[in-house]
């Protein structure tokens, strides 16, 4: 099957004859016969058959539209306006590749330049690349870049970091032989400054997140940056960009490098991918030269007209090969463009409002959840809230699921010291009824467990 995609099937013999081949097999005469293999695979099906089949498989998924969910911990249910999806599905964007031929790819180049520009405004730094794979890989690349810039090989990160990011970071730096040092949190669930000071000696970089893995706003972010700079380390800030309408740009707080997740704008959750990593630096030649990833720049054409082109490519693998700043080639261009379209639609008012709604919804959620559980850390939360139960969380999770509610992300397997805790998250999409349903259910579950 699939003949509908293969126009020249109808001209096979004619074409072979025209170029002097007797058969298709002759085209493969250079393949050793002894290893040729006939696929043991099912035969193809009609588009309708596959449409039905895929729908039946997908039907086994239960979405967050069918079941109130309080999952976050690095992926959040945000609403994506319909026009964003329509625009990125324009096939001129969708079916193009990397804009190697700038003159015929100005649309994608300008859209990516605008993405870089919008992120620059958000994070308060001048230099932004056209995307990494995701926040986690951006973190790995930031650590490697810090090592190249400072010629040191230690990278200091909070212990309260998502298990996903920890694992990606550790894998990314293994080849370079870097050491990752984890710094504890304090009683407020924020980075412990005294412990940070002890770890910063000889560090290539110090990393902190806004908000942190517990959903808390790190109040001492400026001080963390100062400690990093006193130790001659790069200050790397990871940010959930949806907070940047209400919280100061990391660039204004001293960050040398800002990373984060662009896909929180303009892109659905998609079971965790695709996403797009933000990567931004100060306008400092030393940093730019070591930056990973593609960069789009503004220039002019031979008529003097404004034009866009991939630039500063001498850092990249296709030119520098083994000496490149990163191996990245394909990135997440379309995800970045979706994020840009969403951001451009939000504007300053929308972004501020989005941040305020999430902040208020989180505060409301905290008040309600504290009716039935403990909140180990007191602070300002954005999306995620660490909730501690007396009842083992797996029981709570199970019983909530029976009631068609998806609870939070159980973090005991990764942070045993936090006991029966889970991260519950809310966003602008969370409904009051969902929280009400959750609190009622939790009360029942806790009461039952007490019997």
């Amino acid at each position, binding site marked *: 099957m699939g003949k509908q995609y293969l126009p020249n099937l109808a001209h096979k013999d004619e074409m072979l004859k025209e170029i002097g081949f007797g058969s298709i097999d002759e085209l493969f005469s250079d393949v050793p016969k002894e290893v040729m293999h006939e696929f043991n695979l099912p035969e193809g099906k009609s588009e309708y058959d596959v449409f039905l089949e895929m729908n039946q498989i997908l039907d086994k998924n239960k979405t967050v539209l069918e079941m109130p969910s309080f999952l976050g911990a690095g992926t959040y249910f945000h609403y994506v306006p319909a026009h964003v999806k329509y625009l990125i599905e324009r096939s001129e964007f969708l079916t193009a590749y990397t804009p190697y031929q700038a003159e015929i790819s100005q649309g994608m180049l300008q859209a990516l330049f605008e993405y870089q520009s919008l992120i620059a405004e958000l994070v308060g730094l001048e230099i932004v690349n056209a995307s990494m794979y995701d926040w986690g890989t951006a973190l790995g690349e930031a650590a490697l870049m810090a090592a190249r810039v400072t010629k040191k090989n230690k990278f200091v990160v909070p212990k309260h970091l998502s298990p996903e990011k920890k694992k990606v970071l550790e894998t990314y730096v293994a080849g370079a032989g870097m050491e990752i040092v984890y710094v504890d949190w304090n009683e407020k669930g924020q980075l412990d400054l005294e412990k940070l000071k002890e770890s910063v000696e000889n560090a290539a970089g110090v990393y902190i997140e806004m908000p942190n893995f517990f959903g808390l706003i790190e109040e001492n972010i400026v001080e963390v940056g100062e400690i990093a700079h006193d130790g001659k380390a790069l200050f790397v800030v990871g940010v959930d960009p949806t907070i940047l309408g209400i919280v100061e740009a990391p660039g204004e707080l001293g960050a040398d490098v800002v990373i984060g997740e662009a896909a929180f704008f303009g892109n659905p959750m998609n079971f965790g991918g695709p996403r797009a990593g933000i990567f931004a630096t100060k306008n400092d030649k030393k940093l730019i030269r070591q930056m990973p990833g593609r960069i789009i720049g503004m220039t002019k054409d031979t008529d003097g007209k404004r034009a866009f082109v991939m630039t500063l*490519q001498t850092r990249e693998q296709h030119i520098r090969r083994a000496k490149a700043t*990163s191996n990245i080639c394909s990135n997440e261009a379309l995800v970045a463009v979706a994020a840009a379209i969403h951001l451009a639609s939000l504007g300053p008012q929308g972004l501020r409002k989005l941040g305020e709604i999430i902040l208020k919804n989180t505060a409301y959620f905290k008040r309600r959840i504290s009716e039935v559980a403990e909140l180990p850390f007191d602070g300002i939360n954005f999306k995620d809230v660490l909730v501690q139960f007396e009842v083992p969380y797996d029981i709570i999770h199970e019983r909530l699921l029976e009631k068609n509610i998806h609870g939070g992300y159980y973090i005991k397997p990764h942070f045993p010291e936090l006991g029966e805790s889970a991260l519950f998250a809310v966003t602008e999409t969370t409904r009051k009824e969902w929280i009400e349903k959750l609190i009622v259910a939790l009360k029942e579950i806790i009461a039952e467990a007490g019997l």
Partner: protein
Amino acid sequence: MYRQAKWDEPLIFELSKPGRVGFSLPDPIEDVEVDIPEKLKRKKLELPELSEPEVVRHYTRLSEMNYGVDSGMYPLGSCTMKYNPKINEEIAGHPKVAFIHPYQDERTVQGALQIMWELEQWLKEITGMDRFTLQPAAGANGEFTGVMIIRAYHLDRGETQRNEMIVPDSAHGTNPASAAMAGFKVIEIPSNEQGMVDLEALENAVSERTAGLMLTNPNTLGIFEEDILEIAKIVHKAGGLLYYDGANLNGILGKVRPGDMGFDVIHVNLHKTFSTPHGGGGPGAGPVGVKDFLKDYLPVPVVEYDEENNRYYLNYDLPKSIGKVKEFYGNFAVLVRALTYLKIMGKSGLKEVSEIAVLNANYLTQKLKGTRGYELPHKELRKHEVVFSAEPMKKETGVKALDVAKRLLDHGLHAPTIYFPLIVHEALMIEPTETVTKEDLDYYVEVLKKISEEAYSNPELVKSAPHNTAVRRVDDVLAAKRPVITWRMYKQLKEKGEIDI
């Protein structure tokens, strides 16, 4: 005659009008007051302000100044720009794909896990490998995964001295870059006159320090490495592993499998062979397959199927795993597209893909061969792609491969990959794929011939191309010399009077 839209489309920031609103947001659940500490409060926020119709018009205009596979022939070598069936988009855009969270209870995402598991079974049989991870986001991310697995394997066996990765000089730039990222020293070996791995050079390069060889087969010249079994023997005898850069399987699908050729690790670019759209440079997906003896080193989690209970689940219990190369499980929405495509194509369809792709490439090769100014170095029989050299044309007329590429654009045709592989001077790397028509191929050849005539009669016309695209030849030297990366930088330069665009 081709004419691309030439909008004088301003930057979105330049379209901004204070007070315009392009969003609609729900009300907060309750108007709770929350105070952000003063020192952390957002001060300046200079985003553009536009209404929704303005945003839509702006990006629609930009899209009109972009060329995709749906616009016309896009034979970018090594990139496999085939048609992307629309059904893939429809399935990938399903709410049951979009609205699921990666940490959901496995019982609520059985469909997603089944898709991943089924895709793995297809990829195993297609490549002849025993296990796959679907986590890598792109080819290069897959390469990094693969070489990290090779590294873990040698370290696990106590062979810590194996720190050299051998890479042919015709390899994709990502190969040496990925190997270096994993901490390997890269040893480059030359190709022979036929454009294939020089066996003697390989013999001389392997040693007890060899971790592996990274190879593309068919290689980047589109030539099948006929000595592949011998190559595998040499590398394995030295204790090294064989890595297959499967950026592109279009030349071998249904004919021969990397696993049967002796490869131990492979990555596959789903966005190339398996027809998921390239999105202007991503998202792609670069699953990695390994032979049985390497499966313990795969990234976590892997997807398992419990047949007895008809249950799919994520397995994190791989103590020797290299860790993770990306958050969560990979570019899931891309995986959905690839599986949809595979189910439609099936066994015979996939075989026909490579047959027609190879037929098209050889048809174009033979039709273009002998045209003045273009030369066909190395052997003639190609697989899915062919690399011509415009070296004679450059010598005789001053018209370079770059100029030929730009002149192609004037005819509504995308250029081939140029100046790659590095071993061919003035390279024009053409990969038609199986989804073009015979007329497309004939026209492409006709235009290349016409450009040759122009080069010899009116070289300035070619050197000043393109003429019919949204902008004329772009000044990339200026872009690098005076970087303008963002609106913020542009404004600063404008204020200082240092920029006139």
